[in-house]
């Protein structure tokens, strides 16, 4: 599958910014483009080590406890899953040779007979059952993927049967995400409470093993020479992860202190494009920055949400916060999520009553009329912020948009470490009407996102409840025929867009930067789940 953004096959960099490089801080427009690609050139040889930058230190290396970007970037290389997402975001076999629906509500995973843990012990059905039960436990990060699961059984030495309350077509793709990791139960139990901490082991199988986590300093992965799958053997013997704020990450790439990074903010790529020694790529992703409304209620009326959406300057946000490397977007899911019936999804997206990228007087008038009709809330609306540059710009632009249509809004800043708690802490959410975040899913299936709008979904905070929507979610999950599921997903998309429980802002492709000596890493958002470091290697056949 060749993944490309639908309305824009290229990311255009505002000429103004690029001309700065030439004219030393004067304004400019002309344009440089980054072709969206899923992969980078295959390596010519092996390397002894690479240094890779993360946006922050992992908070835990137990993905059932915390599944943030930093830990996913590391553990994608260490912990294999039942299914595997490929650089083009398609789903294929992983530790399971195949997954098959036996009947309407039973899916069977057949394990690869060669699959083994680090000590050579074969991976058995019992290991899979134990791992799935851990993932599905209450409070586990991926437990929502198991909502429809009724029973997990080992029905053979290498066969696991999952019985569901209803067919869930998203379940198998979800097993390529963190919910499909198979743990080495012996290692994990030996670690006890230390698992996931700097003192713990990785308790998984994958092309790399966790060699060191020196808290505050680095995480080191070493190639597992006993890895069971020779086709996926790593070219780089040692990967050292370090972390820094975005500016410092840019400097490490410019100075050659690091070999690569998946950039947390696309705008950081703009200065790197001026450096001929740094390779910059963008690839498809499911990531979209959205304004997520909460139960506080200031935006409970969908007319107010729609009004705010109409007044939002998405194009300006893209240029200001993302250096023009993001795209104004009308749905909460990026095109990387259109893993089947792609043309149908593109067509449906084009047909949407799109959120304007640069609202004019007509949109503002329409928005003001909606506010007048619904009535402005008595108390000022509150948007959360944590000082992160992109989020601050989005917060300011939202306040500005609100003011233009007669809504009063203020910004509430919380510590950066606290921001993630908006997903789990109702008391914190009760203080704000909306918070902005970049949201992504591990599955290339829109149903995997739109199920979040069901009335009982964990992230449906605003109280959006629609019986027809709930019914459509169930039907879409049950539809194993791609064309049928696509139609249902399109209908869900239309209903979501109409009610807008989350207000989409911009779609952000994955942005990859690499130094001159390395190549091979995928450029798509697959890096969060796919063993990308195993694809790395020397750009020229010299090694290092």
């Amino acid at each position, binding site marked *: 599958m060749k993944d490309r953004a639908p309305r824009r096959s290229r990311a255009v960099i505002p000429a103004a910014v690029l001309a700065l490089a030439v004219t030393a801080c004067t304004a400019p427009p002309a344009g440089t483009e980054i072709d969206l690609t899923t992969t980078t050139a295959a390596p010519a040889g092996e390397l002894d080590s690479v240094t890779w930058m993360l946006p922050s230190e992992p908070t835990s290396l137990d993905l059932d406890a915390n599944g943030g970007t930093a830990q996913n970037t590391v553990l994608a290389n260490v912990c294999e899953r039942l299914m595997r997402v490929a650089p083009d975001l398609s789903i294929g076999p992983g530790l399971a040779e195949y997954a098959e629906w036996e009947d309407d509500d039973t899916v069977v995973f057949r394990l690869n007979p060669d699959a083994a843990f680090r000590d050579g012990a074969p991976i058995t059905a019992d290991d899979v059952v134990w791992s799935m039960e851990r993932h599905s436990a209450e409070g586990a990060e991926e437990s929502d993927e198991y909502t429809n699961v009724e029973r997990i059984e080992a029905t053979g030495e290498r066969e696991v049967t999952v019985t569901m309350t209803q067919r869930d077509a998203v379940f198998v793709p979800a097993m390529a995400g963190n919910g499909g990791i198979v743990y080495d139960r012996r290692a994990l139990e030996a670690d006890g409470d230390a698992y996931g901490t700097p003192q713990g082991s990785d308790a998984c199988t994958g092309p790399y093993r966790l060699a060191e986590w020196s808290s505050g300093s680095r995480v080191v992965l070493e190639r597992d020479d006993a890895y069971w799958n020779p086709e996926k053997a790593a070219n780089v013997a040692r990967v050292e992860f370090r972390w820094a704020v975005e*500016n410092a990450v840019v400097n490490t790439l410019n100075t050659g202190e690091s070999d690569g990074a998946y950039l947390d903010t696309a705008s950081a790529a703009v200065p790197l494009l001026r450096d001929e020694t740094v390779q910059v790529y963008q690839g498809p992703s499911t990531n979209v920055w959205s304004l997520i409304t909460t139960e506080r209620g200031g935006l409970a009326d969908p007319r107010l949400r729609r009004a705010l959406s109409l007044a939002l300057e998405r194009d300006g946000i893209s240029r200001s916060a993302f250096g023009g490397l993001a795209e104004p977007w009308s749905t909460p899911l990026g095109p990387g999520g259109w893993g089947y019936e792609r043309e149908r999804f593109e067509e449906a997206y084009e047909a949407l009553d799109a959120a304007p990228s640069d609202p004019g007087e007509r949109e503002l008038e329409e928005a003001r009329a909606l506010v007048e009709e619904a009535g402005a809330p008595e108390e000022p609306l509150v948007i959360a912020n944590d000082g992160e540059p992109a989020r601050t710009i989005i917060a300011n632009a939202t306040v500005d948009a609100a003011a233009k249509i007669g809504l009063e809004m203020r910004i509430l800043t919380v510590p950066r470490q606290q921001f993630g708690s908006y997903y789990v802490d109702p008391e914190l959410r009760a203080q704000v009407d909306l918070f902005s975040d970049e949201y992504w899913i591990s599955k290339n299936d829109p149903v995997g996102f739109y199920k979040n709008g069901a009335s009982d979904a964990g992230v449906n905070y605003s109280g959006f409840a629609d019986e027809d929507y709930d019914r459509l979610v169930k039907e879409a999950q049950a539809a194993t025929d791609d064309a049928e599921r696509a139609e249902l997903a399109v209908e869900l998309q239309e209903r979501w867009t109409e009610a807008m429980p989350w207000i989409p802002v911009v779609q952000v492709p994955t942005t990859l930067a690499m130094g001159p000596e390395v190549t091979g890493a995928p450029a798509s958002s697959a890096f969060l789940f796919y063993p990308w470091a195993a694809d790395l290697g020397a750009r020229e056949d010299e090694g290092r």
Partner: protein
Amino acid sequence: MTAQSPTGAVTMGAGIRDVRRNGGRGALWVSSGFLVAVVLAALFAPVVAPADPNAIDFGNIWAPPGADHWLGTDQMGRDLLSRVVHGARESLLGPLALLVLASVLGVAMGTLAAWRRGWVDVLLARVTDVMYAFPGLLFVVLVIAVFGSGMTTAVIALGLAFTPIIAKFTRSVALAECSKPYIDAYRVQGVSGLVICLRYLIPNMAPALLGYLVVLFGEGLMSLATLSFLGFGAQPPSSEWGLMVQEGQSALIQGVLWPALVPGAAIALVVVAFNIVGVRVADRLNSRR
């Protein structure tokens, strides 16, 4: 005459003393004139500023200084001159408020210690020593961690952090003042200690304290700007100068300097000006006594 900043901000004392020795009268006038202009600009910001400081104009992101925007624009196309002028209000009122708080507490503690001596002096000295020894920035961050970020919390926290500095200075001045004959004379007449302190002692210490506070004002401004830079003080969309520098950071890696440079220069110039004026004011007031 200068003091160590509770947040470790750079002090300007040595340089200022050199200026004073060299008869920096011109520097005094320039600094005074500059400060008057800044205060006036802050007072009349809505008139002086050419635009709404929070008006976003995405069509003018990072516009360089020019006829339309004298100091350029920031990453959201907001006029930097307007923001820095409006930001002067919060940037100047914050240090003023924290110094009022710190002065009330510090002068009271210092005067009480010098007046009562004995165990009260020892106790207050130990209290101020402990407060003095505790890293100021860490103390402020702890206070903010408990009570939440924001300008009010930052001002209160910094006010408490500045208190021991003022208390120590006040005690040293009060000790010298208490040894003067006029204090004994009031005591002999049966005037109560509270009245002597409030009506005679503190007013007589005022010149020395005033000069000291003017110098501390610059440091208070820098400390508050530091907190805002770290995200603990002023919050968006405020145009407080420290916050403006923080927001201008992202422009630096894009090769655009002015969003950080403009508020940074404003902080530096105002702090230097307050130091020059503070030192000269203290000299003059002391020489008249």
